[in-house]
């Protein structure tokens, strides 16, 4: 009897209390925001009336999301008690805000059901996330390393479909990187980036000794042996093709960024990074000089928006044509100010593609600078946990895999928010978890699943098999 109480108190203590505790505030926040969104549809001058308050039925989507999140929490509790406790609440809040924003933007862009669609994607994503943890359960994570060339091949196939698709389609349509599979439009790039990271992690963990020692020497520079450099050069080539043929500047930057951060993490040699950056800058400059399309993309970065009163006719023409999207986005951000217009009270309909590429400006307008800081804070915590999992992992492959997958989030968030704020050319990269879109949400949840799995493996080795 005494033993039993001890055991139950042990189970009580080993419950994932931190995770449950961290779920409370996100749930309150999501319910509160949904209520606010429904209340904004009423007449603002009327007095708040309890009978006009949203009923349980109207709150169902968010309650459903909360239920699914708690269900995932319980599943983790039963099967993977020792896995990371911070990622799920953070990601849950982010994707919840994504669902709310999709609901809110739906009517503005003429797709009333957008919120529900996004909700379905998030639920599917969570299921796939848990599925990923289970799928990597019995074999260890090195199973992935063994299939690194399969991953690379799969990535190349995905890449080729994008390429063929892009050559068929009109390059000027914004969605030319989508792959149509029956009723679903699917973006191969979301899986491509995961394949790239798996390949790099496996490749670098096997060859890092060779790469770090360096085969060639020019003065104090170590150059890697050429044979080991082959696959890496191939990656570089792929991102260049992406940039020049498919005109996916964002994806090219993302893959090149992953390449840079992983080669630095894998070899601990700054030389490689500096050389690669120099090559990229050089090629970018050549591209800028030679290709009008690249100049077009960069034109908006140098455009002066603040001084709008002194715009010439050419400037006005630019702001209402090529630069329309970014300029409207900036207007939305500035109209949000510090405190924001309030959720559901802004005017996001003026910005083209507000639901996915420009969703950052929608958040900026309605939550204000202060809300954006909080959002960036949540992203930073996700990144912190990701790198923490990488540091704690016990073997090279897991370390590199976790760090690489986390850098995907970091680079993506950086590229798209900088694009939205006119610090970089705008590219069609989704903001992780907040942008509307099924493949992006699912891809991100696969990443979270792998991260959770790695942290579970680490905890198992640290605390024994029990």
């Amino acid at each position: 009897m005494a033993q039993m109480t001890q055991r139950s108190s042990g189970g009580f203590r080993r419950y994932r209390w931190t995770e449950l505790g961290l779920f409370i505030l996100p749930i309150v926040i999501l319910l509160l925001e949904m209520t606010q969104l429904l209340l904004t549809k009423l007449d603002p001058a009327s007095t708040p009336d309890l009978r006009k308050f949203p009923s349980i039925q109207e709150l169902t989507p968010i309650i459903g999301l909360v239920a699914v999140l708690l269900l995932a929490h319980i599943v983790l509790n039963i099967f993977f008690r020792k896995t990371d406790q911070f990622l799920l609440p953070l990601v849950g809040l982010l994707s919840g805000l994504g669902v709310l924003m999709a609901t809110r933007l739906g009517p503005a862009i003429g797709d009333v059901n957008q919120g529900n669609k996004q909700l379905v994607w998030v639920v599917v994503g969570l299921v796939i996330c848990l599925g990923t943890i289970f799928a990597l359960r019995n074999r260890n994570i090195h199973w992935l390393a063994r299939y690194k060339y399969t991953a690379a091949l799969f990535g190349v196939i995905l890449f080729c479909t994008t390429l063929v698709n892009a050559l068929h389609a009109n390059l000027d349509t914004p969605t030319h990187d989508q792959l149509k599979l029956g009723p679903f439009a699917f973006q191969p790039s979301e899986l491509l980036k995961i394949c790239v990271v798996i390949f790099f992690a496996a490749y670098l963990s096997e060859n890092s000794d060779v790469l770090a020692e360096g085969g060639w020497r020019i003065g104090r520079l170590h150059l890697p042996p050429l044979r080991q450099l082959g696959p890496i050069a191939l990656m570089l080539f792929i991102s260049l093709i992406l940039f020049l043929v498919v005109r996916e500047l964002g994806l090219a930057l993302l893959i090149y960024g992953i390449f840079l951060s992983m080669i630095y993490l894998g070899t601990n040699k700054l030389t490689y990074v500096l050389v690669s950056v120099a090559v990229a800058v050089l090629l970018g400059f050549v591209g800028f000089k030679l290709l009008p399309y690249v100049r077009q993309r960069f034109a908006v970065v140098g455009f002066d928006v603040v001084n709008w009163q002194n715009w010439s006719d050419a400037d006005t023409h630019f702001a209402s044509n090529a630069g329309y999207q970014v300029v409207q986005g900036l207007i939305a951000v500035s109209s949000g100010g510090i405190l924001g217009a309030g959720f559901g009270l802004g005017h996001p309909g003026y910005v083209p593609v507000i639901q996915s590429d420009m969703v950052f400006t929608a958040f900026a307008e309605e939550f204000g600078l202060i809300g954006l800081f909080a959002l960036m804070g949540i992203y930073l915590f996700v990144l912190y946990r990701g790198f923490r999992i990488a540091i704690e992992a016990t073997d090279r492959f897991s370390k590199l895999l976790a760090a690489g997958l986390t850098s995907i989030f970091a680079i993506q968030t950086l590229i798209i928010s900088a694009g939205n704020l006119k610090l970089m050319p705008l590219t069609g990269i989704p903001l992780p978890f907040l942008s509307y879109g099924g493949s992006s949400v699912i891809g991100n949840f696969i990443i979270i699943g792998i991260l959770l799995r790695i942290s579970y493996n680490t905890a198992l080795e640290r605390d024994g098999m029990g």
Partner: protein
Amino acid sequence: MQLDTFLLILRILFIVLLYLFLMQVVIAITRDLRRTSASSEDMDSKGPPVLGHLIVVDSGPTNILPGTRFDLQPQTIIGRGPTNTIQITENFISSEHTRLWFRNGMWYVQDAGSVNGTYVNNQPAREVISAKPGDIIRVGYIQFKLTA
């Protein structure tokens, strides 16, 4: 009170809750860090203790003398790379070949994704296998005997 005042209150409440959540995460992370740093200090103060040995029984095609002893730490990685606890520079040993760790009085052996495999008493150790002193552990073509 009008509805827009009420909405303003909701907005401020939202911001406050968002930052409260961030604070809660910071507090939880700090507590987590303190706990892990305390437990790692415990380990550091003793230094990596030697808990057992691997004695070469059959060195296969290599020049390692049978009878050579390798020390085992609580977390030991055998492989060709310089970062391993036990480094064996032979072609048939993978960069990271085998991982052994000691927990609750038992050794656990697992292959780290090597090409030529790891075996405990001729059983492939792709999954985690427990091992006890006296067992024969084969890493690639080298056979070791695990001793306490």
